[in-house]
């Protein structure tokens, strides 16, 4: 973010990358990759695009900079590999 604001809230490109929304989360999904069967349903359904596949089919990882903690991954995982854990400050 520049020192001074622009009219109409115009900002540099990729503002959705720059603006980290992970702090909005009240609970975080924690995945157990031992249970993961690599169906990647969670990747497809994550509304933030915050879940990605690990290399060599080792499972998935959550990007906590952008995950808002909605819990769709945990709800949809056929293996119940996700646990929603309350964020503590």
């Amino acid at each position, binding site marked *: *973010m520049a020192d001074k*604001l*622009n*009219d*109409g*809230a*115009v*900002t*540099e*490109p*990729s*503002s*959705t990358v720059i*603006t980290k929304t992970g702090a909005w989360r009240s609970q975080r999904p924690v995945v157990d990759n031992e249970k993961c069967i690599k169906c990647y349903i969670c990747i497809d359904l994550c509304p933030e695009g915050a879940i990605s596949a690990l290399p060599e089919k080792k499972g998935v990882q959550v990007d906590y900079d952008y995950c808002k903690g909605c819990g769709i991954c945990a709800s949809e995982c056929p293996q119940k590999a996700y646990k929603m854990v309350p964020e503590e400050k």
Partner: protein
Amino acid sequence: MKMPRKTVMEGSMAVAEAVKLCRPQVISAYPITPQTHIVEDLSQMVADGELKSEFVNVESEFAAASVVLGASATGARAYTATTSQGLFLMYEVLWNMAGSRYPINLTCANRAVSAPINIWNDQQDSVSIRDAGWIQLYCEDAQETHDFQPIAFKVAENPKVRLPIMTMMDGYVLTHTYEPVEIMDQELVDSYLPPYKPVVRLDTAHPVTLGAFAQPNTYHEIRYMLNRALMGSKSVIASAFKEFNETFGRDYSPFMEEYRAEDADVLVLSLGSVCGTIKDAVDELRNEGQKVGLVKLTMHRPLPKAELRKALDRASVVAVVEKDISLGQEGIVATDVKSAFAGHDGPAVLSYVAGLGGRDVPVRDVRRVFSEAAAWKGKKAPDDPFWLALNTGIIPEVR
């Protein structure tokens, strides 16, 4: 100087002709009575090749507004027109246009709002949008609806302003009535209104984020900047009118027109075409020796508070006659006029709700306003509005 072309034409055509002269690059609108003729005329001009513009047909007013918003974001000069329910369907986009600072020109053909459904004229639609961050100008006659188009684009596109602007014309009274109109010369319009040069626009060579998310640490300030720009647009509007008068030989005063108001004891303040009727009433009463006058408010937003005080403070009573109401309160413009005098000595300000849903406001009713208002000299104005020419005979008792 070339002789100006004067012809008799429908108010809607006067707007369309003026918009054509302003060379908009994108027009998008959805037909709705009584605005339809404006965009029908424009689409005909585009189809006939008289106007080189992208005319985008859409499925709703929400889409029309979104198209012109997007067009404006790319740096195009963009125009739309609507009314009543159509304007309300645009509501969310109207706020986005102002908040994102897009200099869009919208003509609102004033019409009553539902329910009950009614296609005739009042000004509830546009007055209800006053808080969205738009500049709002009201026209009295077809000539004004024609002339205000280049003024609108010029003000909106000024780099110091960069705000959308709405010009109002009363449905049917102006949109469907034929009047003599002096058509502007294309060369003069081109010199008055050069091509739009956007400060920022969607451009892959110079990428930016438009419509960005603002967190609590910046939103408050960005809204402050929006309000500062709207307040600051007053001086740009004044210069745009002055330059228009010099270029086209007109005599507009920005913000408001004072009609026989200089020594008036009782004033009516109003907006739009009804001002023509009020001027007739003022002339009659002046001939009878009464010190009465009219202040025609051209600009409702930004509200010209200091100028209102200057125009009204010599009178004992000001009756604000308007075709709208803030339900549960009073006439919206009346509240605004009162706010201009808050903390100042001033006249008693009366709120008159008049002419809703196309009810005619004839000279005899305006005369009644002046005589009733005179009785309030030196008194405190009542809390509740007066309803002009209310037919109490058809209203049942409270049950």
